[in-house]
């Protein structure tokens, strides 16, 4: 089985979010970049398939050379090859078109991408990639088993979960639940050393337009001070929620 894991290069979850250039660009100054958490759950599940069932695992990112340390980290975790599509990841549709070319060239059976990146939260790349390549698709996937060319996938739905069966080739929008938080791997020294020697192929993008563009960023308005209610007088909270906030 050939697996491709799509990796977004995103600010660490603890990052302070700021913008530059008249609020048109994300300020990367002092920001630590990591593998998108939703992708990392997928990568870890892919490693499980590799070790338990036999599979090759490639990782791909659409981005500039600054994303290579993130791809190297994925190699250190255990991926076999990395591919970087050398272009700026302007919008989800554009990224999906780039990935579709990689999927077609590589003949992958299973593609795992995070259900969304934690920076732009577009939530469209896995679905668009499936539609562009004609593969089956399961989103918000929290459990995945493969047997031959048949997959059993569990997805999170509003208020519960749903199990389905489908055939490969398959694209999965992954998230926590594909593996547990405690299953995530920190690369060891041997992994890091080996990752330096693994192939990281840079390919040029296919010609395509971005369909959307983030033209301006805004930060939420600063919040007013909290109104504290005396723990001996919780009735006041009920009154405030009813009369002032008007939410009950």
């Amino acid at each position: 089985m050939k697996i491709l894991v799509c990796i977004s290069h995103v600010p660490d979850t603890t990052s302070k979010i700021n913008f530059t250039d008249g609020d048109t660009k994300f300020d990367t100054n002092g920001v630590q970049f990591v593998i998108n958490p939703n992708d990392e759950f997928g990568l870890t599940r892919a490693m499980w398939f590799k070790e338990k069932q036999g599979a090759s695992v490639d990782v791909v990112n659409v981005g500039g050379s600054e994303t290579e340390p993130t791809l190297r980290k994925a190699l250190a975790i255990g991926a076999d090859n990395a591919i970087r599509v050398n272009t700026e990841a302007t919008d989800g549709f554009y990224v999906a078109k780039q990935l579709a070319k990689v999927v077609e060239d590589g003949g992958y059976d299973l593609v795992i991408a995070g259900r969304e990146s934690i920076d732009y939260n577009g939530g469209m790349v896995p679905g668009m990639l499936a539609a562009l390549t004609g593969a089956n698709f399961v989103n918000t996937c929290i459990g995945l088993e493969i047997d031959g060319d048949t997959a059993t996938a569990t997805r999170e739905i509003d208020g519960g979960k749903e199990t389905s069966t489908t055939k490969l080739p398959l694209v999965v929008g992954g998230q926590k639940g594909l593996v547990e938080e405690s299953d995530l791997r920190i690369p060891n020294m041997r992994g890091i050393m080996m990752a330096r020697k693994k192939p990281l192929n840079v390919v040029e993008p296919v010609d395509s337009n971005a369909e959307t563009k983030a033209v301006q960023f805004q930060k939420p308005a600063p919040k007013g001070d909290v109104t504290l209610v005396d723990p001996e007088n919780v009735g006041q909270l009920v009154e405030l929620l009813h009369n002032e906030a008007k939410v009950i």
Partner: protein
Amino acid sequence: MSVLVYTESEGGKFKKAAFEVASYAKEVAGMLGTTVTAVSVNGGDSSELGAYGVDKVLEVKEDKLTGFNAKAYASAIRQAAEKENASVVVVSSSADSKFLAPLVAVHLNAGYASNVVSLPESAAPFKVKRTAFTNKAFNITEISTDVKVIGLSNNAFGLKENSGAATAEGFEPSLSDADFGVTVTAVDKATDKVSIADAEIVVSGGRGLKGPENWGLIEELAGVLGAATACSKPVSDMGWRPHSEHVGQTGKPVASNLYIAVGVSGAIQHLAGINSSKVKVVINNDPEAPFFKAADYGIVGDAFEVVPKLIEKLKEFKANNA
């Protein structure tokens, strides 16, 4: 030209989110000088949609679509959009709508903006405001394609009633075997509980609850308010509660009208996930907990003392305001 809206239903009844996306679509149609067509799959009473501004309903009645199937539903919505010559397609932010929206967008060659929180800032160029960085920021996104797909954040726009009446007509999309490549074998859904996505009020518990055996407190508070229950990341990591209740950056986003956090300290990732909630209340015994900086109302106190009192006061309130 028209604005097409996918109005979701469950068990033959429209969901509240269906009325919200219809309300939104009506105002977008007003900006563009056109009408609203809804596509309803085995849906509810179409006249209900008229009350929220829908002019026409394409009713799909199809046994094969009894259960949700993203690809087949996306195919039906795409065909409806083509039939109606739609320039904008509006869907909600439910798990199902987020599942099908990218498929619809590809087949209409449409730019797609998810998590949209307000009406377009302008129609030409078409610009919408959406949340990004898991609610730590907004971005204004310009969509440059002829057809646009908008995913509206739940509870972001609200319901706007309208005096119009909707006409209904049958619609039979052509579906192929390839649309049914994924077969659902089991659905496990608590029918007696409100889901986080649909909830107007969410009650959430953190490590301050000390153990899963104390979760009755959260459930009782949620029960009085008709709220969904949620939890912080450590609580789900320790297995006190299922992952599906984990709220935050790597969990679920919450965009409720009221969010009550009990014994949650307020890590940056948690606060990001709930930032879209309109009113936030925190109950925590540590006055230094970061949550107090993000909350509108707070009580510094022991959850095991405060919450039972709050439940009692809420019961009194409900009894007096029934």
